[in-house]
C-alpha cells in the first residue's frame, strides 16, 4: 500500500467515527425532543443526559476530519472547497444553531421546549445535508470554470440519487441513536426507556436496510463506474448483511435491561456499518471526487505526511486515555445516569 492509500484509509476511518458519533449525537437530540412532553417515559431524560457532555467530543471529529483532509490531500481540499461553498456553509449554519440552541435549552428552563424543538429539527437536517457530499463525490454535478470546478446545485438537487443518500443518512441517524440510547438505558437500568428504544430499533433496522438497497440500486443507475467497484466488493456487503441479521437477532433476544445480548447486538451493528463503509470506500478508490480528483494526484508532500502522521500518533495516544476516562465518567457510570 502506498502512503496515499494509508492516508485515504485514515481519512475514511475518521468519516466512519464521525458518522457513528454524529448519528448518535444528532439522533439523541431528536429523541430528546420527541419524548419531551411524554412524562410517562423517561426516554427524553436519558437522551438529554447522554447528550450533555457528548456533543463537544463529536465536534472534535468533524474538525479533525476537515483538518486531516487539508493536511493529507491539500489539492483535493482545494477542489472540494470550491465545490462545497453552499452546502458546506449551510451545514455550518445548521450545526451552529443546533449546538448553541441545545446549550441554551440547558440554561433556560422557561424556553426549553422551543429551544429543544429547533435544535432537534436542525439535528435531523444536518446529516441530510452532510450526506449530499456522497453524490457530489460520486461525480457528475460539477462544471469546470477556469482552473477550478464549481458545483451545479440544480443538478444535485434534481437527482433522485441525492435523495436516496439523504434518506439513508436520516434513517441511519435515527436507527443508530435508538440503538445506543437503548444500551444507555440498559446501563442506567431504566426499564421504560429501554423498552421504548428497543422497540424503535426493531422497526427502524429493517426500514434502514431496505433504503440501503434502494440507495445501492440508485447508485447503479447513475454511476456505472461505482457500480462496477461495488460488485467487486460484494463479499464485504454479504458480511455486512450477516452482521445486521445477527445484531437484530441479539436485540430481539434482549427483553430486559439486564440482558447482555443487547450489547452484542450493538457491537454487531457497528461492525455492520464498518464493513459496509469499508466496502463502499474501496469501491470508490482511487477517486475522492470522480473523475477529477484521485488520492494520488491530490496527495500532500512526503515531509508533511511524515510530520502529520507523527502528530496524529502522539495526539491519539493522548486522546485515547482521555476518552476512556470520559467514557467511565459519563457513558458507563450508573451514578451519573441515575442522578435526577
Amino acid at each position, binding site marked *: 500500500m502506498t502512503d496515499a492509500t494509508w492516508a485515504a484509509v485514515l481519512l475514511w476511518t475518521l468519516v466512519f467515527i464521525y458518522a457513528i458519533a454524529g448519528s448518535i449525537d444528532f439522533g439523541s437530540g431528536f429523541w430528546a425532543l420527541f419524548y419531551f412532553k411524554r412524562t410517562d417515559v423517561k426516554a427524553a431524560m436519558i437522551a438529554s443526559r447522554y447528550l450533555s457532555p457528548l456533543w463537544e467530543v463529536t465536534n472534535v471529529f468533524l474538525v479533525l476530519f476537515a483538518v486531516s483532509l*487539508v493536511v493529507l*490531500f491539500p489539492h483535493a*481540499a482545494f477542489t472540494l*472547497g470550491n465545490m462545497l*461553498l453552499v452546502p458546506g456553509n449551510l451545514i455550518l449554519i445548521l450545526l451552529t444553531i443546533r449546538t448553541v440552541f441545545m446549550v*441554551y435549552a*440547558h440554561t433556560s*428552563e422557561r424556553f426549553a421546549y422551543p429551544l429543544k424543538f429547533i435544535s432537534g429539527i436542525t439535528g435531523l437536517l444536518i446529516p441530510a445535508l452532510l450526506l449530499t457530499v456522497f453524490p457530489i463525490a460520486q461525480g457528475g454535478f460539477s462544471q469546470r470554470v477556469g482552473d477550478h470546478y464549481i*458545483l451545479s446545485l440544480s443538478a444535485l438537487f434534481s437527482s433522485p440519487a441525492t435523495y436516496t443518500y439523504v434518506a439513508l443518512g436520516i434513517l441511519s441517524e435515527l436507527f443508530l441513536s435508538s440503538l445506543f440510547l437503548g444500551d444507555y438505558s440498559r446501563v442506567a437500568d431504566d426499564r421504560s426507556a429501554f423498552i421504548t428504544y428497543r422497540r424503535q430499533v426493531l422497526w427502524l433496522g429493517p426500514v434502514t436496510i431496505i433504503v440501503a438497497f434502494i440507495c445501492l440500486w440508485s447508485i447503479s443507475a447513475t454511476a456505472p463506474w461505482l457500480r462496477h467497484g461495488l460488485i467487486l466488493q460484494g463479499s464485504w456487503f454479504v458480511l455486512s448483511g450477516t452482521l445486521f441479521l445477527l445484531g437484530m437477532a441479539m436485540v430481539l433476544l434482549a427483553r430486559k435491561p439486564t440482558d447482555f445480548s443487547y450489547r452484542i447486538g450493538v457491537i454487531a451493528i457497528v461492525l455492520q456499518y464498518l464493513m459496509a463503509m469499508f466496502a463502499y470506500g474501496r469501491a470508490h478508490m482511487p477517486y475522492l471526487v470522480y473523475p477529477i480528483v484521485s488520492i494520488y494526484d491530490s496527495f500532500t508532500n512526503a515531509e508533511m505526511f511524515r510530520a502529520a502522521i507523527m502528530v496524529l500518533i502522539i495526539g491519539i495516544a493522548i*486522546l485515547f486515555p482521555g476518552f476512556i476516562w470520559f467514557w467511565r465518567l459519563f457513558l458507563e457510570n450508573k451514578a451519573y445516569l441515575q442522578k435526577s
Partner: protein
Amino acid sequence: MPLNHVVLARSLFGTSLAFHIIFATLGVGIPLLVAVAEITYALTRDSDYAIMAKRWTRGFTVILAVSITTGTIVALQLSLLWPRFMQVVGQVIALPFLIEVFAFFIEAVFMSIYVYAADRIPHKWRILSVSFVAIGAAMSALLITDANSFMNTPRGFRMENGRAVDVHPWLAVFNPALPTQDTHVLISAYMAVPFVLATIAANALVRRNISSREREHHTKALMLTLFLGGFFGILTAISGDLSGKFLAKYQPAKLAVAEGLFHTTKAAPLIIGGWPDASTQQVIGGLRIPGVLSFLATDRFDGVVKGLDTIPKSLWPPLISHELFDTMVGLGTLLILIAVIGWLFKTIRMRKTQYPFPKWYLFIVMLSGIMAIGAIECGWLYAELSRQPWTIYGIMRTAEAVTGAPYVGTMFILFILLYALLTIGTISVLRAYFLRHPLANDIEPGPIRPRKVVWLP
C-alpha cells in the same frame, strides 16, 4: 475574479472572525480566572471565591458553546472561502491546525468533567481539571496564532508551479513571528477577560438595592479582576513593545503603516492620532513626539525607521491601519490606568472603609469590558489589514486565494443573520439565567470567616 467578489468573501470571513474572537478571547480567559478563583478558595477557604468560580463557569458553558461552534465555522470556512490559501496551508503549515484539534479535545473533555462531574470528584481534581481547560484553551490560541504568524513570516518552503517544494513543516511552525505574536495574543486575552468580569462586578456594585453581603462579594470579585487585568495589562504593553521591535526588523511596512510613517526617517517621531493622507504623504494632525518612534523601534533616539516608501505604492496596506493601531494602544493604556487607579483607591482607603471604590470610578469600570473587547478587535483588524494585499506575506495575494464559487453574497447575508441571532440569544439566555439565579441564592447570608486573609494585593 471581480473585485467585489473578493470584498464579499473578505467581509464574510471577517465577520465570522470578528464574532468568533470575542467568544474565543472569553474562552481563553475565563478558565484562567476560574482556576485562580478555585485556587484562592482552596488557600483561603473563603466561600465567596468558590461562588465566583461557580457563577463564572455557569456563564462560561454558554460562551464556550458559541466559541466552539463559531470556531468550527472559521476552521471550515477557511477551506470554503480561501481554497487556494488552504492548499498551501495543507502542504506547509498544517501542523498547528492538526495539533490544535487535540488541544481542543483536552479542553472539551476536561470541561465536561469540570462541569458535569464536579460533584463526583474531590476539590483537588476540580482545580486540576479546570487548569487543563485553561491549558487546552491557551494551546488552541497559541497554535492558531502560529498559523497567522506564518502568514506574516512564511518559512520552510518554496513555490514551484503552484505546488510547495522543499517543504520543512517544523521550520514553518517555528517561524520568526511566532514568539512575539503568540505572547501578545495570549497575554492580551488574559488582560481583556478580567476587565469584562470587572464590568459585571461594577455593574452590580452601583445598584442601590444591593445588600451588604452582596457588596462584599462583588468588591472581592472587582479587586481580583482589576488586579489580574492590570497585571496582564502591563505584560501586554511589554509584549506589544517587543512586537513593534520585531516588525521594525521583519515587516517594516507593517510598522510604518501603523505609525503613519511615509518616509524612511532617522530620529522618527511618534505620531499619536491624526489622519494619514496618501496624496501629501503626511499625517494630518496628531500629536508628534520627536525621536520616540525610533527609540521604540530601535532602542536609539536617532535610529533609522523604514517608511512606506520602501515598498511600491501598489503594495501599501490600507492607511486606516494607523487609526486601528492607535485605538488599540489607546484603549490598552486607559485600561492599565483604570487598574492602577483602582489599586491606589484600595491602598489609600482600605484602612478607613471596607468599600474603597467611589461611584464615579465604578461607572468608569463598567466601561472597561467593552473597551477591552474593542482593543482586541482593533488589534486583530490592524494585524490583518496591515498585511494586505498579501494573505501569505510576499507569496500569495488575498485576491488569488479566494474561492471561485458563486453565492458568496447570499452566504454573507445568512451568516449576518446567524450572528445577530446568536448575539440576541446569548445575551437573553445569560440575562434570564442570572436574573432567575441571583447571587443572593448562592452566598451564605451570614458573615463569613475565611481561614486566611486574601493573599492578592
